[in-house]
């Protein structure tokens, strides 16, 4: 189907179902229960899962296929966000032109940076991309303030021109929309204690994720993708056969930059603010972490990694001592206090500590990331169910 093998089609369908049903899947606990704290099914976080999923899928195209480790991808995310917000300010609150512009601008920016950085390889390439991204961040924070609004971030104002929307003076800020369909409108379904949010913005992001994921599968399986893998395995041998790897690497660098720009544009569409810190090296590092954590070079890994990190950032940081006391109320006082004291360093303001420990555990014991872990569990289950069945070789022909 759609030019995919059976296995890939299944994967795509799984992703599609997961993203379409996310509002249910992410809200497994009834409202008001002690575990509701772990629910992640509110529009903002679901949008973040998907947007960072797109970002990581794009990053994986570059890193997973060619092995070029870019430490500057956040710059494209940031540039995408700025272009989208400028589009909202100048042209229209419709998200479509904003997203298109952010992809184009990020593409051009990545062409420029990629052209220069790809002259070097290995860590020298990484530092070149890092240098460009840090320069962008620092300038955006200070000197380029007229363009970026510096520390605060670029925001909408009441007196923006907004040519297509008629501009004029408003009494309240306009909201982003897709031909009149407001991004923030949410339908809430209350079912027997559970509450599920269906947000327009989320579904737009999810549809784009599915498209982006499909495109990434096609690139992985294409002759172009094969060429990129050749760059990773042995660039020299490739050159001896008379092929110049540069156009291929540059092309994939720009494509992954455009993915980042798309993610940036979507972020701005969901919440029209573009902050400079989106370009900081820690943000670039975060997408590396997402990809490696999920599984480099796997199709689904980056999406899982993105979800994992964003879940931690948004859920763990909000658990405080009061919440903990609430959970363990049923215990005798002394025991309750003891447990809260033990858990205290790991929650709330200590969520970084938990994240750091999780990284170390995952990297040490699951070298292939979460996908690897999933496979191991799968194998374990398979072996238990059918112990005498030999592993069948992959019968799907490579395209």
């Amino acid at each position, binding site marked *: 189907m759609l030019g995919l093998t059976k296995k890939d089609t299944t994967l795509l369908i799984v992703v599609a179902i997961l993203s379409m049903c996310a509002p249910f899947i992410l809200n497994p606990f009834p409202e008001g229960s002690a575990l509701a704290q772990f629910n992640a099914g509110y529009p903002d976080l679901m949008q973040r899962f998907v947007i960072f999923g797109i970002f990581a899928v794009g990053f994986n195209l570059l890193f997973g296929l060619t092995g070029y480790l870019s430490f500057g991808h956040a710059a494209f995310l940031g540039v995408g966000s700025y272009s989208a917000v400028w589009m909202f300010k100048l042209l229209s609150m419709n998200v479509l032109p904003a997203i298109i512009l952010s992809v184009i601008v990020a593409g051009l920016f990545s062409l420029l940076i990629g052209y220069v950085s790809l002259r*070097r390889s290995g860590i020298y390439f990484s530092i070149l991309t890092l240098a460009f991204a840090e320069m962008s961040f620092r300038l955006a924070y200070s000197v380029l303030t007229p363009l970026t609004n510096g520390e605060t971030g670029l925001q909408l104002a009441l007196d923006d021109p907004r040519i297509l929307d008629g501009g004029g003076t408003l009494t309240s800020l306009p909201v982003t929309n897709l031909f009149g369909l407001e991004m923030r409108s949410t339908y809430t379904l209350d079912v027997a204690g559970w509450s599920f949010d269906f947000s327009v913005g989320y579904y737009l992001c999810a549809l784009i994720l599915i498209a982006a994921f499909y495109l990434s599968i096609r690139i992985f399986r294409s002759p172009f993708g094969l060429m990129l893998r050749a760059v990773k395995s042995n660039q020299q041998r490739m050159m001896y056969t008379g092929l110049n790897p540069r156009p291929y690497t540059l092309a994939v660098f720009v494509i992954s930059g455009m993915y980042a720009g798309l993610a940036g544009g979507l972020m701005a569409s969901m919440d029209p603010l573009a902050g400079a810190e989106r370009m900081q090296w820690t943000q670039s590092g975060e997408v590396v972490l997402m990809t490696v*954590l999920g599984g480099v070079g796997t199709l689904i890994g980056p999406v899982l990694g993105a979800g994992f990190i964003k879940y931690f950032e948004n859920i763990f940081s909000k658990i405080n001592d009061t919440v903990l006391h609430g959970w363990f109320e049923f215990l005798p006082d002394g025991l309750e206090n003891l447990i809260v004291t033990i858990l205290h360093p790991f929650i709330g303001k200590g969520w970084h500590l938990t994240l750091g420990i999780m990284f170390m555990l995952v990297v040490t014991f699951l070298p292939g990331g979460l996908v690897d872990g999933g496979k191991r569990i799968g194998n374990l289950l398979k072996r238990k169910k059918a112990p005498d069945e030999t592993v069948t070789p992959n019968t799907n022909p490579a395209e």
Partner: protein
Amino acid sequence: MTSPGNGLIKAATTPLILVVIVGLLLAFIPLNELILQLLNGLDKGSAYALIALGLTLIFGTLGVVNFAHGALFMIGSFCAVTLSRILSLSYEVIDPERKDFLGNPLKVDVPYVEKWFGEATGAAIIDWAVPLAILFAIPVMIAVGFIMERGLIKHFYKRPHADQILVTFGLAIVLQEIIKALYGANPIPTPAPEVFKGSFDFGVWMGFDANKILYPYWRIVYFLFSAAIIGAVFAFLRFTTFGMVVRAGMADRETVGLLGINIDKRFTMMFGIAAAVAGLAGVMYTPINSPNYHMGMDFLVLSFVVVVVGGMGSLPGAVLAGFMLGILQSFASMNIFKDIIPGIDQIIIYVVAIIILLTRPRGLMGRKGVMEE
């Protein structure tokens, strides 16, 4: 064939050109300001060089990209903080004359050292906490290094660099969060001994008017200290058998192993030494800036840029790049340059890194094939 000296000359051309350019621009700047910024640059550069040196030691010997190196620097600073706290361990004496903020009688802390050694000697010991912390930090840092290498890094020698980066990055976060949990997020003032307060007037010494070139004593101490450490590391590698074996191992690990030398053990010790170098850089840095838990991360990216500009795996390259970037950064902070290129002081390090990497593919003194995969 080229003689070994040739490489060095080649490596020195790029910085030489840069120095000439900067020199030309400086024709418009008074000499005393120039000297002042040069001093600043050397001072900044010595911190960069020390951290980059440790990073390169670890990378060159073990082939591990250590993102937790900044955290080692930070732990070094907190060794100084800890020692100063240990020395000031106190018992409480209630002073009915004075009141605390709630209006209760104030509990005055009297350090034990003052009780044991008399008030003057005790106060002097506390005053000298930072230099004394050098003695305290060396065993602590070597131990930290050993535990890190044996407990964690060892398992990552054969893993991809990305995994090494990730696990050491995770470790860096864990280490700094532990420090934050113990010491809080606010900076902790840790001053230098009283005798080092104040500044030395280089101007008078060089024949300028008074007050033209003042430089704080402690920063001069820091520079001299760094120079001594860098010299010691080089001498150690150059003139001891241990160092010779390590250098041989850096060049060709397998052959050295085949000669029946337990190179792993030596490399572990090198990790300890590298950790100690980073830690000492941290100890001596505390009076310059009050230490806080995230100072390691502040230095991390910068020190990687320094190492890469110097050339991966090259010790002299790391030192050279450290001082060069420190000096350039100091000059970029002057308004005369900022007026020409707005924000140049924000980005100078990165601009220089890009220029150097584009003109010299492997940094100033990097070897071919190292970390280019």
